[in-house]
């Protein structure tokens, strides 16, 4: 009984930090409709700045905290609102998620990058912060430890977090509930169109929501830093994911319920740790409790109220900007790119760059799975990293332990990954948009913490090592052969995607995407269709996973962390989620980028660059790129296609105008009338 009480008390205290984070998440979501995965990045940056001001420059704690919370955070909130999120308010959900992932990745990397460069280039005498193990918060140093009844111990830091959480949540609740500004924010959240018709300036409420949300994130970062201990972006990301679970359990509307949800999640984790002895063999089980609660919460929420309007991110397909071009002209860029790639792989590149390129191609293959599930299926999946890991581990186990031939292991691993895809999709498939994305992310974490920790699959810390196979004269340990093999697979998958779009399944998917009810009424099962697409996508990701393991010669359960899926999605959406080309280029980019940044010499000595040693640069670039989505939510390729289309259109207009003037002013009206007709004809073709 003592233990039970102790679990509940310590759970409530440690839940406070999640409550603080959850309140900010709910505030931004409820008043702007954007689910801010970047919250962890904001919290981290605040904690980092506080650490540098306090421990680095020796400022008093309260002054440093004041600067961070009252100056830095409001400014950052304003920048985020103006530069990124307001432009995305009506953008497709995938673009919103990716932009917030951009913030999640770029902000921490920027912080450590700036401080790191400052130290090496300008001799700043401050700590790098990355190796800080115990960060002082606002509490007394060293912290006080109080022993309550029956051995329950709490520290001064925990008390500060608890009191701050209660104060913040209460203040926020009063603000939203009883002030006119709070009411305006709730009105915008409920119906933004009507709110502006009733005189609410939604730009102003959006600004306020971001400033307040960012300040809350800053408070959580500064006050929570001694509890979260390591000044490491991943620790903050994990805390925010737990807080998401709390917010979802609390119904995602009310800050009070989010507070209760946070306490509930923390207490439940504690009780599981004490009483779930059956799971004591699985090391990661306790940390999965919040994620299981998150999935459960999402399911209940979807069932209880039809709050999630569609179960896919419904959006109008972008127009085809190449409709006026002949088929050969449409294919030309891809053909040129293919030719260049083949020339590079088979003649130009030396072994180092060849290996890098091959790795990039394998990522291209993996990324094509996003084209299937998000581009064709309209569902945002953040579980792709789990499929890659799972298939790699599975192949490793089959080849090494059971002496399966490589090809058979590949087929089995792909099948297993499709099965895993169905398992991940089954509970979450009737959720839509953000909820589906969160559920898949949670399931990816559960897979990573539990399934891939089973020793049969992971083979200890060192994982599996196996040598690449040979088919007759073709050895896959030859990089050229491997690259060729991957290219063939990419070609097959692209061909499959093209077929999928034209096939029955593709049409069903389109029907389900546009009008689920209408699709059901003509006999298309939305669930079956979505499962099919999900399984296919998981299979492609698994295929890539096996190739990646083969290329790397080894795989461990930590080779591909679940959070990698976020970075991947960011890359693909950045270039274009709807067409295979986007995925392929994103894969090559991600594979080649890290090596490129270490310096390169262009062929024929065209250029030479000795590179940068900052490991943050690729992440910053990708993060900034994802944030750049705010300007082009359909991806770079689509944007280029649109610009070209507009240029051609202008040229046509000019030509017509010229013709009209040469024939005579009287016919000018006819000349203009031709243009819409010509465009309409293009639409049909």
């Amino acid at each position, binding site marked *: 009984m003592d233990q039970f009480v102790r679990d509940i008390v310590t759970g409530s205290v440690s839940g406070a930090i999640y409550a603080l984070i959850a309140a900010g998440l709910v505030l931004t979501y409820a008043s702007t409709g954007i689910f801010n995965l970047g919250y962890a990045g904001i919290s981290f940056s605040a904690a980092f700045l506080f650490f540098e001001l306090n421990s680095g420059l020796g400022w008093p704690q309260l002054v440093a905290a004041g600067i961070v919370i009252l100056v830095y955070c409001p400014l950052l909130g304003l920048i985020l609102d103006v530069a990124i999120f307001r432009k995305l308010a009506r953008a497709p959900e995938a673009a919103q998620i990716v932009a917030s992932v951009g913030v999640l990745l770029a902000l921490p990397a920027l912080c450590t990058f700036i401080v790191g460069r400052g130290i090496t280039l300008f001799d700043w005498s401050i700590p790098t912060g990355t190796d800080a193990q115990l960060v002082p918060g606002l509490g007394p140093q060293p912290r006080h430890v109080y022993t309550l009844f029956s051995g329950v111990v709490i520290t001064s830091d925990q008390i500060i977090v608890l009191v701050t959480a209660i104060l913040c949540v209460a203040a926020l609740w009063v603000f939203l509930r009883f002030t006119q500004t709070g009411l305006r924010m709730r*009105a915008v959240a409920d119906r933004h*169109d009507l709110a*502006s018709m009733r005189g609410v300036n939604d730009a102003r409420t959006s600004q306020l929501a971001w400033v307040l949300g960012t300040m809350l994130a800053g408070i959580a970062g500064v006050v929570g830093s001694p509890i979260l201990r390591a000044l490491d972006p991943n620790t903050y990301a994990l805390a925010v994911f737990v807080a998401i679970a709390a917010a979802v359990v609390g119904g995602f509307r009310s800050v009070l319920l989010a507070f209760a949800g946070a306490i509930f999640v923390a207490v439940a984790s504690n009780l599981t740790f004490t009483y779930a002895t059956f799971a004591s063999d699985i090391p990661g089980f306790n940390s999965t409790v919040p994620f299981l609660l998150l999935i459960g919460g999402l399911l209940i929420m979807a069932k209880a109220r039809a709050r999630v309007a569609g179960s896919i991110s419904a959006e109008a397909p972008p127009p085809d900007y190449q409709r006026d071009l002949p088929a050969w002209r449409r294919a030309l860029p891809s053909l040129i790119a293919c030719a260049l790639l083949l020339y590079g792989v088979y003649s130009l590149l030396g072994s180092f760059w060849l290996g890098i390129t091959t790795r990039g191609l394998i990522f291209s293959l993996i990324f094509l799975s996003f084209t299937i599930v998000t581009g064709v299926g309209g569902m945002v999946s953040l579980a792709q990293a789990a499929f890659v890991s799972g298939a790699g581990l599975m192949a490793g186990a089959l080849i090494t332990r059971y002496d399966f031939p490589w090809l058979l292991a590949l087929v089995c691993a792909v099948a297993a990954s499709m099965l895993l895809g169905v398992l991940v999709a089954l509970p979450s498939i009737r959720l839509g948009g953000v909820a589906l994305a969160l559920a898949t992310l949670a399931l990816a974490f559960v897979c990573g913490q539990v399934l891939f920790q089973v020793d049969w699959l992971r083979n200890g810390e060192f994982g599996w090592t196996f040598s690449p196979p040979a088919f007759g004269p073709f050895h896959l340990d030859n990089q050229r052969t491997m690259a060729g093999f991957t290219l063939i697979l990419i070609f097959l998958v692209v061909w499959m995607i093209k077929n999928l779009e034209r096939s029955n399944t593709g049409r069903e998917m389109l029907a389900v995407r546009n009008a689920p009810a209408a699709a059901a009424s003509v006999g298309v099962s939305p669930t079956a269709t979505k499962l099919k697409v999900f399984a296919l996508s998981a299979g492609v990701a698994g295929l890539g996973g096996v190739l990646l393991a083969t290329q790397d010669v080894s795989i461990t359960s930590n080779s591909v962390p679940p959070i990698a899926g976020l970075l991947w999605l960011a890359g693909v959406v950045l270039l274009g989620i709807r067409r295979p080309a986007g995925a392929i280029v994103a894969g090559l980019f991600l594979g080649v980028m890290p090596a490129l940044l270490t310096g390169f010499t262009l062929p024929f000595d065209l250029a030479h660059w000795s590179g940068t040693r900052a490991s943050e640069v690729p992440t910053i670039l990708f993060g900034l790129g994802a944030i750049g989505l705010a300007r082009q939510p359909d991806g770079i390729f689509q944007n280029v296609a649109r610009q070209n289309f507009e240029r051609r259109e202008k040229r046509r207009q000019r030509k017509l105008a010229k013709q009209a003037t040469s024939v005579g002013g009287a016919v000018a009206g006819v000349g203009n009338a031709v243009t819409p007709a010509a465009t309409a004809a293009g639409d049909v073709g």
Partner: protein
Amino acid sequence: MSDAKLAVENLEAGYGAVRIVHGMDLSLAAATIGAILGPNGAGKSTTCKTLAGYLPATGGTIRLDGQDVTKKPCWWRARRGIFLVPEGRGIFPGLSVDDNLKLLLPKASEREQVFERFRVLGERKRQHAGSLSGGEQQMLSLAPTLVHRTEVLIVDEPTLGLAPRVADDVLSVFTELRDAGTSVLLVGESPHGIVDIADQVSLLHVGRITWSGPASDLDQATLEESYFGEAAESGSP
């Protein structure tokens, strides 16, 4: 036409490359009820949203009391006194009835006036507005205009989906508002009920006003012509 409350000249609007409203002229005098009637797809809702500023006008001008408001944002126009009840009710379904009113009537005494007049709303003030019946929702969306007089009230499909008796109640609110000095613009597909209370009627066909005049001059033939599209181009008086 500088004495008009709301004056629209050569208005053009649409979505992206698709133009819906092609050069509309419209004038609504102070304290009158105007009506815009037209079949499906004539551009009625687009007109409403453009007048309220929710959609930007791509051409032409909108004047309120002689002041050009064409470029002003939606919320600015709302504060200046253009009140649009969009198609399918103008309520916040997720907010309580009380909160719905509070947004425009911050004083409790003002809300009490509403609850005295509409008992049902008073009884259900803690409920989500989305749980009200269609008629109650329409009353809730109009209620603030009865307490604070707005300059121009635009209602898209005022009686759509309402039982006949409820529809009559709603229509009587409009005559009351007119008598209190509000200019009302009713927009609908069916002339039923609307024409009886309107002072001025305009017929809209494929984004153009094809007929415009006092409600008493509107005859069956003109109406049919507009709805069925024959001779629509030459019908302008």
